[in-house]
């Protein structure tokens, strides 16, 4: 980017050129100056922290409630990220569809007429926010449940524990990016939220049931490769039976994002604003 801009003749009035870093800054200002963003982030954090408290409280009341004799593992701390999938999915969709519903997109694309950097910058800001909220939330959940679990509290001092904690953040970043891509493709909040939540939360169950009812085994075999399932493997302490491991799962999710995001960029460039 900087190489491309420095090749141009110097601007006599100070050379305030558009750079990707500046577009990212612009998108950060945009996202953080809307109340809806703070609501979504607060709800996300609340869910990630609060959901694990319930089993911890049950455990504190009766250690046998967990069933196993070994006590809770780190996986008990990431239960709230399943709720975060919904809130961050909505946030990711709104980050782009609210530009179209409000008309802001005309101002945005007039300032950055190349258009593509806008979508990429939104992705950077959303991914960082989602990952941050996910990781911080899970760590807070660990702190909050510490007194409830007592001596049985899961240790964070293992490679697996950190894979789960950081992976939870990456998975949530992926969800936000997927939602952004779908939002950019459809430009309508209602439609995009339906598609995102349908793809992440509804389609897996439908495929399982349909595969079972119709006797088509392939339906069931596809499910682990859906973005929600593939991305969730990294948040499991002991992935079982999945054809995908934690990192290959994240890669499959990244592929979904790349395909949908690529289509969104192509349409963004070719369509009228």
């Amino acid at each position: 980017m900087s190489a491309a801009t420095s090749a141009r003749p110097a601007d006599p009035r100070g050379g305030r050129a558009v750079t990707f870093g500046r577009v990212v800054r612009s998108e950060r200002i945009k996202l953080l100056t809307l109340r809806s963003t703070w609501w979504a982030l607060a709800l996300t954090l609340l869910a990630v922290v609060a959901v694990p408290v319930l089993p911890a409280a049950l455990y504190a009341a009766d250690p046998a409630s967990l069933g196993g004799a070994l006590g809770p593992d780190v996986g008990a701390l990431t239960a709230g990220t399943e709720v975060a999938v919904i809130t961050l999915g909505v946030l990711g969709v709104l980050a782009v569809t609210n530009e179209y519903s409000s008309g802001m997109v005309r101002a945005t694309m007039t300032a950055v007429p190349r258009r593509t950097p806008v979508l990429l910058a939104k992705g950077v800001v959303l991914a960082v926010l989602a990952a941050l909220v996910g990781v911080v939330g899970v760590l807070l959940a660990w702190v909050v449940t510490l007194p409830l679990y007592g001596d049985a509290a899961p240790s964070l001092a293992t490679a697996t524990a950190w894979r789960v904690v950081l992976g939870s953040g990456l998975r949530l970043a992926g969800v936000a990016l997927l939602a952004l891509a779908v939002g950019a493709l459809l430009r309508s909040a209602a439609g995009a939220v339906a598609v995102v939540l349908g793809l992440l939360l509804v389609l897996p169950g439908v495929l399982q049931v349909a595969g079972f009812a119709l006797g088509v085994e392939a339906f069931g075999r596809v499910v682990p490769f859906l973005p929600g399932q593939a991305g969730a493997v990294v948040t499991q302490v002991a992935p079982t039976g999945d054809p995908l491991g934690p990192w290959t799962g994240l890669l499959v999710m990244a592929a979904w994002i790349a395909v949908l995001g690529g289509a969104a960029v192509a349409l963004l460039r070719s369509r009228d604003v």
Partner: protein
Amino acid sequence: MIVAEHLTKRYGDRTAVDDVSFTLEPGRVTGFLGPNGAGKSTTMRMVVGLDRPTSGRVTVDGRAYADSAAPLQEVGALLEARAVHPGRSARSHLRALAATHGIGDARVDEVVAMTGLSAVARRRVGGFSLGMGQRLGIAAALLGDPRVLVLDEPVNGLDPEGVRWVRQTVRHLADEGRTVFISSHLMSEMAITADDLVVIGRGRVVAQGPVRDVVGGVGGASVLVRSPRAGELGALLERSGARLERRDDGALVVRGPDAAAVGDLAAGAGIAVHELTPQQSSLEDAFMTLTADAVEYPTSPSQPAGPPGSGPRPAGQGRPDEEARA
């Protein structure tokens, strides 16, 4: 400088902009005049790259707007529809746009002050009146201190004080050497504000040039003559090539020669003249004639361009309270 060459935009089988060409000069205010739906907004959206032309092209200082390294310094645009998220404060909106170019908060506060929004800059835009929204749009257009301003219906929804402010601002910006392209369906506004006109109807340019020439080119300029020997004078005028309209009250409306020529001709023939009044049709008349049936008028400049900015503009014909009938 903005140069549009054979700009055409089709939506399906509807042609919104049809082979539009024009050149906008620095230091001049060019009014873009046409009824609603004539293609003004679409043309302006193509200037800043929001809409892609079906064919033809438009360049800003020789290149496509999107190829500029610092677009907001090339063109500041106020587009007709609101382009602001209602949940954001005016200042945050401007800061976000400024950030794309590394333009600092000092300039943001400057344009906020210039547009008289200081008192409301931290309020959410959703509660703004139409006029405040327009001021915010103009503030955004000024952010990059651009060489070219594209303002789509900037006086829409403004109170008289706001209209005056826009008029003065636009004049001031042009006097600083900037290119100003301002659309309106209000002919009275254009008569006061613009130096040049591009008149558009049904997507086609029906006339362009200095305001005076566009008005004159519609056959508007005429001379009202009263004479006790109107019949003789009329015959004499017709022989000299003038076009005549004989009114019921005996007056003649003469097109072709100016008042001096008519007077000289009458004096030469010894014919007394009781009234000799130059008449200029208003921009409004010109506009109604031009856009009444776009097909009747081919896409060409109405007149050879006169010296830029010379001569009086047809002020006073349009009443400020009279909106377009378009």
